[in-house]
């Protein structure tokens, strides 16, 4: 019997099998941010266990609320900052160099095919885009990860998702993943891996693959994963060029992680995207998804472009493409948060920031802020936001607020018209 990519990664990292179906894995990369890590640090200190298993394999960032908005968030930053300095964690990104964790860590080349990655953040599944096993975990798992470099998982089954066809103009990875979550429901992939493949995924750039894998958790999945190929190699090349004689050699090496043709899947689903329309959520669950035409005319108070789902340069380019020479509708607040300093710099150089500003957008520093209603764009009761983020839970962006998830193009179109509309008609 062949193995899936995830089974191969599990086999290569297996430390222990405490009972049938449970695996203790050695972890390659433990990532930390200032919301879930400070309590772990405090607890380890109280227990007299303030140690790290390997400072080079721990990556840390302040991203959720930055700059600090009040004394409590300032303290969270202080705790993780002092901890990073105390343990000589060199890959620590603080203000001026910080960005949204699931955008900045891939940008730095920290995640490689075949890696195991954990973070106290549910959207850690993003990094499966590189052919890694990457999972969100809680603070206790994080503590053990920091201390011992191991984490426990139930041996996951895999849902193979083949995406066929040709993606139409105006339709993006975000629309595909929303349509997949709609079919699977918010619990359809619980305890499972979503393995994305097929001609549409083969053609996707890493940003699009990250958008897909990022939202795997919204169907309950442990991780989304794409098979590492030449697209992966090209993205990682600056970081791996000394390890391989050529890009072809790297791509051939990455193939060792590919799922075998006779691998066993829990389920195999096929999606045909040639006639897919832009998608949008309508309720308080990410599986409550409709064609955007069905929501056309819904008024919005705020438009948010950013987050670990859709705050990358590719997303900003798409949004700017229809904002150029246009103004956002009167009464609509537009907010764009480039996900990393590099994204921000590129957007400046490419003239995108000017386009956003001339259209009437507020451009914030890189931060998660508004996505989870912590800062930089919290909604008031009864307000509606067209958002490129990943969760539309009740109260997510502010108590009593409503969030409609969509692609950056659809969000930009909503900003221009002041109502949700099909961006292909603009």
């Amino acid at each position, binding site marked *: 019997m062949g193995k899936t990519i995830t089974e191969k990664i599990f086999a290569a990292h297996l430390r222990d099998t405490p009972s049938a179906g449970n695996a203790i894995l050695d972890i390659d990369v433990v990532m930390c941010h200032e919301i879930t890590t400070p309590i772990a640090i405090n607890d380890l200190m109280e227990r007299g266990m303030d140690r790290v298993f390997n400072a080079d394999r721990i990556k840390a960032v302040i991203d959720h609320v930055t700059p600090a908005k009040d004394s409590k*968030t300032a303290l969270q930053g202080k705790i993780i900052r002092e901890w990073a300095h105390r343990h000589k964690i060199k890959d620590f990104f603080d203000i001026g160099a910080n960005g949204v964790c699931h955008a900045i860590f891939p940008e730095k080349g920290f995640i490689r095919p075949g890696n195991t990655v954990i973070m106290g953040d549910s959207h850690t599944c993003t990094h499966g885009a590189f052919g890694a096993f990457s999972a969100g975990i809680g603070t206790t798992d994080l503590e053990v990860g920091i*201390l011992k470099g191991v984490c426990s998982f139930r041996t996951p089954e895999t849902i193979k998702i083949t995406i066929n066809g040709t993606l139409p103009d105006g339709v993006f990875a975000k629309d595909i993943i929303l349509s997949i979550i709609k079919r699977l429901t918010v619990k359809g992939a*619980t305890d499972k891996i979503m393995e994305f493949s097929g001609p549409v995924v083969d053609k996707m750039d890493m940003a699009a693959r990250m958008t897909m894998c990022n939202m795997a958790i919204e169907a309950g999945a442990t991780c989304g994963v794409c098979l590492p190929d030449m697209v992966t190699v090209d993205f990682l090349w600056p970081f791996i060029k000394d390890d391989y004689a050529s890009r072809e050699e790297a791509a051939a090496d990455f193939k060792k992680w590919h799922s075998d043709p006779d691998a066993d899947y829990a389920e195999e689903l096929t999606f045909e995207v040639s006639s897919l329309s832009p998608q949008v959520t309508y309720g308080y669950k990410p599986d409550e998804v409709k064609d955007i035409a069905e929501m056309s005319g819904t008024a919005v108070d705020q438009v948010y472009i950013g987050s670990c789902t859709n705050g990358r340069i590719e997303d900003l380019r798409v949004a700017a493409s229809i904002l150029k020479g246009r103004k956002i509708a009167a009464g609509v607040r537009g907010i764009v948060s480039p996900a990393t300093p590099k994204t921000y710099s590129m957007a400046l150089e490419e003239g995108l920031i000017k386009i956003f500003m001339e259209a009437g957008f507020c451009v914030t520093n890189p931060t998660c802020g508004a996505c989870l209603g912590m800062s930089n764009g919290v909604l008031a009761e009864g307000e509606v936001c067209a958002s490129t983020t990943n969760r539309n839970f009740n109260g997510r962006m502010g108590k009593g607020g409503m969030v409609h998830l969509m692609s950056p193009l659809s969000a930009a179109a909503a900003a221009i018209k002041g109502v949700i509309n099909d961006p292909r008609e603009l």
Partner: protein
Amino acid sequence: MKEFGGACVLLDRSDINTDEIIPAKYLTENSKLALKPYILEDLKLNGFNPKTSLEGARVIVTRQNFGCGSSREHAVWVFEVNNINVVIAESFARIFRQNTFNCGMLAIELPKEDIEAIFAIEAKEIKVDLKGQEITALGNGKHRAAFTLNPFDQELVMAGGWLPYADQKY
């Protein structure tokens, strides 16, 4: 190991998410105890009032996919600091379930029929027999249900959580 069982509260909805259990704005707290007043603050459910409905509760009974969404362990701690250390559901989101066992608490999965029966008798109390892997719900009648704990999860509960377990073993 903790003591399990006691008065229960029934939350009759699937997909109760972590933002409903503890909204993100409280994630700036640096102690578990500080979360205490905010339990289930954003949960909108007929007849449920987070300020009064949970008085004396030790056990939560609910439907499918409880704890979906964020990885925040705050969603487990907020129960812990309110003296609730058992959640019984038809199914859980993976991270919430793991966080619960990692804290030495119980996330018990029961078949739909048993959950239906517990709701049907409007259970007021749940007795938990961890050794015998059985719960007894008491309300307008009595319902007993067997449950199965993964042996590893059971070890975590016995050890008082993943940190003491892992510290000793790895």
